[in-house]
């Protein structure tokens, strides 16, 4: 059984299919060696914690994390969460944060990708500068923007006062109404370059002949974009939006460092709230129950994510 490459390979494997999956697995046993290290590491660091989180969510736990003393409380932790006002506030914040960040990061990235598509002087340098925020650590970004938003010495406040648009520097992040939008600006600053990179590569797959043909047929720039370019970007846009949405839903650093969730929970999102419950107030059981709820939401996302990715997988192998 010396399978060589794909055509011969798939031929013998089709034969094998009839002989049952265990036999097939045995014949290909050396293949598993290649994935074993990855799967092994992930089982320890991922599967075990997931199991453990689910278990803890049914218990009342002592703050010390001396887990022998935990008490079974059934679904109490879940009930506690769904009845609290903070939960709904934080959920609303998370939705606003995720949707707005994803929307603006994607469309600013799309605009930049389209504007950078054609060759012009300085294009490479410009592209490099636009990518930098994506590479900078979120911790550094949080401090930079915290300083820019500073209520006494911040540069934005100073510009607004200088232009006569405000009497005194506005307080961006200590204000319940402006804190979330202000943080979204920072998040989009870090994320739009990712959308830009993905979409720039996507644009390269749009055949030039098609665009030229459309021009000859009298299509304007907008029509060319909508009928030729956009259909070619559908696949990459789906993946980009999903990856952005997941990253935003899971983000932690920017709100945590810039505001710690305040003022009065106005910038708490799920992840920061769970973190505070667990490591701040040491309510491990409640935090675990939160995590399980989060897990269920993420799994719903995950269904679409896998479908989108398996679409591109089918195409690649097809």
């Amino acid at each position, binding site marked *: 059984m010396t399978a060589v490459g794909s055509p011969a390979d798939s031929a013998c494997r089709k034969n094998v299919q009839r002989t049952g999956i265990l036999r097939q697995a045995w014949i290909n046993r050396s293949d598993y060696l290649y994935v074993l290290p990855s799967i092994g590491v992930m089982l320890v660091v991922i599967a075990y914690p*997931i199991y453990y989180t689910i278990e803890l969510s049914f218990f009342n736990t002592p703050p010390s994390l001396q887990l022998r003393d935990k008490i079974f409380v059934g679904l109490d932790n879940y009930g506690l969460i769904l009845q609290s006002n903070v939960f709904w506030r934080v959920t609303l914040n998370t939705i606003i944060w995720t949707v707005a960040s994803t929307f603006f990061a994607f469309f600013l990235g799309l605009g930049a990708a389209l504007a950078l598509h054609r060759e012009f002087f300085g294009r490479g340098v410009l592209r490099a500068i636009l990518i930098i925020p994506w590479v900078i650590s979120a911790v550094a970004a949080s401090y930079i923007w915290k300083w820019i938003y500073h209520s006494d010495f911040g540069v934005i406040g100073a510009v607004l006062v200088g232009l006569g648009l405000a009497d005194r520097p506005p307080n961006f992040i200590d204000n319940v109404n402006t804190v979330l939008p202000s943080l979204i600006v920072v998040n989009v600053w870090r994320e739009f370059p990712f959308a830009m990179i993905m979409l720039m590569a996507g644009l390269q797959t749009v055949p030039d002949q098609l665009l030229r043909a459309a021009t000859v047929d009298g299509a304007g720039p907008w029509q060319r974009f909508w009928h030729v370019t956009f259909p070619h970007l559908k696949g990459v846009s789906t993946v980009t939006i999903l990856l952005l949405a997941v990253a935003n839903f899971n983000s932690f650093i920017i709100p945590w460092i810039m505001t710690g969730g305040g003022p009065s929970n106005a910038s708490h999102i799920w992840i920061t709230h769970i973190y505070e419950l667990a490591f701040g107030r040491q309510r491990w059981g409640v935090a675990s129950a939160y995590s399980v709820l989060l897990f269920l939401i993420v799994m719903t996302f995950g269904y679409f994510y896998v479908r989108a990715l398996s679409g591109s997988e089918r195409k690649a192998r097809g």
Partner: protein
Amino acid sequence: MMNSPSNPTPKARRPIDRWRWTGRLFLVLMLLYTAVPMIWMLLTSIKSGFAALQFPPQWWPDEPTLASYQKLLDPTNSVGRDFLRFFWNSLFVSTVTTILAVIVAVPAAYAFSRFDFPGRKFLFFAVLLRNMFPAVIFLVPLFILMRLLGLVNTHGSLILTYLTFGLPLAIWLLKGFYDNIPIQLEQAARIDGATRFQAFILVVMPLSVPGIIATAIYSFIGAWNEYIFAYTFINRNDQLTLPVGIQRFFSENTTDFPGLMAASFMMSLPVVVLFLLLQRYFVKALTEGAVKH
């Protein structure tokens, strides 16, 4: 340039020009959005502590000074000693993570791209699905696990978690690369008598160097910038990495904005330089998986 030069009537050109100018205006605005915060970081970092706290601000520092940088890089004072220690810790953790990630991800990605063993699809999506889960879900149990393994307050805890959490995307990036290497090359090597493993090492590996570079940058930047695990697992000052170290230092002393900006700059510099030098590999690999037909 795009429309045919044989048709230069003003009527046909006007809308194109309008779109082109819209594009340029947009790029200028994006450049301001991107660059102004970074420029302000640099300008603040060369002010004295007193000059930074003025209103209206000094748009350009009256007396530029490198004092903040000197303080951070001077091993004889306590700030400099800590900063250099954090820097070294970050470098160590990121480098080890990167090397291990490549060693583990390369064979896995190759297997997912080439072989057809039962469960291949399932395992691949299990790997990708991991990417969806926020770190916070894993924090409490991982903290307990690390305590069990005696890894709390060690770099081992960070390397192990960064490795795991970086793997899914690393495998995905590399798999896209292997998918694009023609299988005929390996078949030729097999016909010449190479074993499958030899074909992989001698033929496929050299061709996938750009993908490996991309994976390495991705792992390095991810580990360098990671915050939440380091924040949770490490409590000893001499073991901290930069993102947490900087936070511990400056949150207590929030008026030293030049110092904070200088530290932010120093923390960003290595990854930005690395990325700009190697970005074409990275951009290529990142888009390979999602964009190819």
